[in-house]
């Protein structure tokens, strides 16, 4: 099963992501902001990164840009969670190198579907 | 698993229930303990006597890091109990006292087997002629050629 990193400043979102994905057998690591997420991604290989965009210390866009600089993360799917009904933000994240997005609020099935789509054996 | 005692039901048929029990020996008597209250059976461990405690709860033992009381139910029932032998076991049971679950070790001279008995095979406890205190015995039940005692553990230990 896949190693997944969830980066969000909201513990409840992280917990939900973790619950949903662990129940599908994935190994979920957590980070509370972009900087922490970047550190974790440098230390361990992940098959998928799920990140919020609006976070303290380092936001999601900066995280995505930084992650794409890491050779190990070239080609690794990075999905951002967004509540923005804001196309500019979404564009920015895509241009930073994100693979896709999930719009909050989402249901566990949607999360499963996206992860299943992007993480394949 | 053995199914003993398959004699026909008495004419005055009470509701017949199959009880799963652990048979333990105390001196010359055999007691049946319901398996749902049995947590584990262990070899004897060192005892710590508790000065000032009631005589049938003389000691404490360490069972996997938990300190639990050890009960001498033979003493409580008024039965003679043999000296410690290689057959001696501690039967750890969970009972309810005033609504709280409590774990207690029981000293058994011997542990026989887990078996099933039919409640329809039970007899009321005789009030006279018994060598043991009848207050703590719910009923007696037939097991092969023997009559075994079904104690009321809650009553026995509180």
């Amino acid at each position, binding site marked *: 099963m896949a190693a997944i990193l969830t980066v969000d400043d909201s513990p409840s979102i992280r917990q939900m992501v973790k619950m949903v994905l662990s129940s599908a057998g994935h190994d979920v690591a957590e980070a509370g902001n972009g900087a922490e997420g970047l550190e974790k991604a440098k230390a361990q290989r992940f098959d998928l990164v799920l990140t919020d965009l609006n976070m303290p210390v380092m936001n999601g866009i900066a995280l995505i840009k930084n992650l794409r600089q890491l050779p190990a993360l070239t080609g690794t799917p990075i999905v951002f969670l967004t509540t923005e009904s804001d196309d500019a933000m979404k564009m920015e994240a895509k241009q930073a190198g994100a693979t896709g997005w999930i719009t909050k609020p989402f249901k566990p099935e949607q999360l499963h579907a996206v992860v299943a789509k992007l993480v394949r054996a | 698993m053995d199914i003993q005692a398959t004699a026909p039901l008495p004419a005055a048929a009470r509701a017949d229930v199959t009880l799963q029990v652990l048979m333990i020996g105390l001196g010359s008597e055999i007691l049946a303990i319901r398996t749902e209250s049995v947590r584990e059976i262990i070899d004897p461990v060192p005892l*710590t006597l508790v000065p000032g405690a009631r005589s049938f709860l003389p000691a404490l033992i360490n069972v996997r890091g938990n300190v639990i009381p050890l009960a001498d139910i033979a003493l409580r029932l008024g039965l003679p109990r043999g000296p410690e032998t290689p057959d001696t076991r501690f039967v750890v049971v969970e009972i309810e006292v005033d609504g709280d679950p409590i774990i207690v070790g029981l000293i058994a001279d011997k542990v026989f087997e887990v078996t099933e008995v039919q409640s329809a095979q039970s007899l009321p406890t005789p009030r006279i002629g018994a060598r043991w205190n009848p207050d703590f015995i719910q009923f007696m039940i037939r097991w092969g050629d023997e009559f075994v005692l079904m104690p009321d553990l809650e009553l026995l230990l509180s």
Partner: protein
Amino acid sequence: MDLDPAEVFRQEAAELLESLESALLDLGQKPGDGELVDAAFRALHTIKGSGAMFGFDRVASFTHDFETAFDLIRKGKIAANHEIVTLSLEAKDHIRLLIEDPISTSEAPGQRIVSNLQKLLAGDGAATVSPAAMAAGPAESAIPPGGQQGWRIRIAFAPEVMRNGANPLALLDDLRELGQCTITANTDAVPELSALEPLDCLISWSVELAADCTRADIEDVFLFVRDEMDLVIEPLGDAEAAVVPEPPGLHPEVAQQQDSTPTRPATSAPTHSAERDAADRNDAVRRTDAKGQTVRVQAERLDELMDRVGELVIVQARLSQIAHAGADLAIKAIAEEIERLASGLRDSTMGVRMVPMGSLFGRFRRLIHDLSRDLGKPVEFVTVGEDTELDKTMIERLADPLVHLIRNAIDHGIESPERRATSGKAATGRIELSARYVGAQVLVTVQDDGAGLDTARIRAKAEESGLLALGAPMSDHDIHQFLFHPGFSTAKTVSALSGRGVGMDVVKRTIEAMRGTIDVSTVAGKGSSMTLRLPLTLAIIDGLLVRVGRSRYIIPLSAIEECIELTPEIEARARGRNMLDVRGDLVPFLKLRQLFCEPGDPKPFQKIVIVTIGETRVGLVLDQIIGSHQTVIKTLSKLQADAAMFSGATIIGDGSVALILDVAQLLTMSHTQRSAERPAEAA
């Protein structure tokens, strides 16, 4: 083990609302502060997003408008001002209500707040607050025209699409899930192997999909890569021929677009991210500045942690014992290291559970204010040692006993202003509530400057209720203990507040259940004080392991004053009385072998451990002192409630159980023993 995420959200929201409030209050002072606006925005943003996730729909929809407003402020489109701050504070209170009671919280205040916000923002020149609806694109979900059985799809990705984590083959698999596919790859753009960049996607595809699906179903497959590809979808048979488009990357204009800086939000994006980067740096600074960042933990988890640490300490004790019995120096060294770590872990874990007493003391201000008014006794309330920390569970259990003691102090202790005047005291009484550490104990004292305890009246009352024989000799200390007797009250007139005799016995029981004691001290005319002695924690204590006969016991180290040897001289001087002459002091003693019914005679040179609680001392005569022992307290089961001499048990190094002596109980026993002896002595 996982928490309900909705519960996590509630806790998180409570913290976010707090930080929102402080950001808003600060913003009221410094309306131009971008950092504060950012902080408020982020709090609102998270509340909205997480709220929607966990079914707090009303929270999400209400918060939305404020989030938008702060986004506009953040982007400099409108300015923060006093009105917005005030309104946002109201909004924050409303959000809290919506989270606490999502169902029955009334709609009206929220609507009023939102409409006020709309007005405010409209006045500020921003015409609309509502965000642009998410551009979902025109919903063209036509199924293929009649008679047509499927679609022809032409797919060409931008070369970098794979670097961004997309998987073209997986997308083709998704298409196959829609129906029967005939896929043709166009590899014309793929260069010689030597020139091949493996992460570039240079293949394009043409797919004939025989399925009864809609155009939207197909577009959904490519949702995430829609802007990184050319996608042509046409009904089968519609087009003349399947022309596979060239990869867009090879189109000069597309290539150029990639070279230049992001073009789409060209006007706003660069400034945007510059702002954000600055904000990020500020955030980083603020985070490090922020003092005492906290994490909420459920109390049960702390208890669980404490249990684990307890188990570790027990196992560590066994390891140490085995290591020291052997000759292996390396194992000894490891055992010592583990002992050090376990003891550090124990202290840290206990530290996590510690709460300053100040949190409790604050609650009594109001009580004293009200009592003082109702009784017509002006009282000055002084607290000392608010920083003294005590185990969280104990602080909670202390509240009620302290209420009783403070009530008694005002009601019985402090005299009326008139009486105070006649004895030359200031009209205003004084009650001091103090806490301090003494060794491994915390002493909490309630002291008043009233008349002091009326020992004669307590005695009269005891005699009256048959607790004490008329004229029987008894020390003042013992007489004061009647105060804690159930149903005992000395108040001449029963006041509404105290004096019914309920309380003091309950206070004593509560304190004893916490392994604590109460000392009473009083000076006639000057006042009295009640001192609660409490262990720092309920779970682990430092103990002294001793042997009596065949059994080993633990004596709490905090109660031990000294250990001496019972020499034949000392024994001779005792002359059969249960009193020892310890360097000129008479100390009563208890022979534990007798008390515990250990058979046989002791070897000579027994040890005396002198224990003390408050003013009372007693010597415990025992056989051997083994050494100090970190003692994890295991409570005795209900079945052994009658084993009163012990406060619990613990597991010692060899895995066996040792009982922990209840020193307070032993002291009481020694007292009764002496009281019983005294008439004989007098005769």
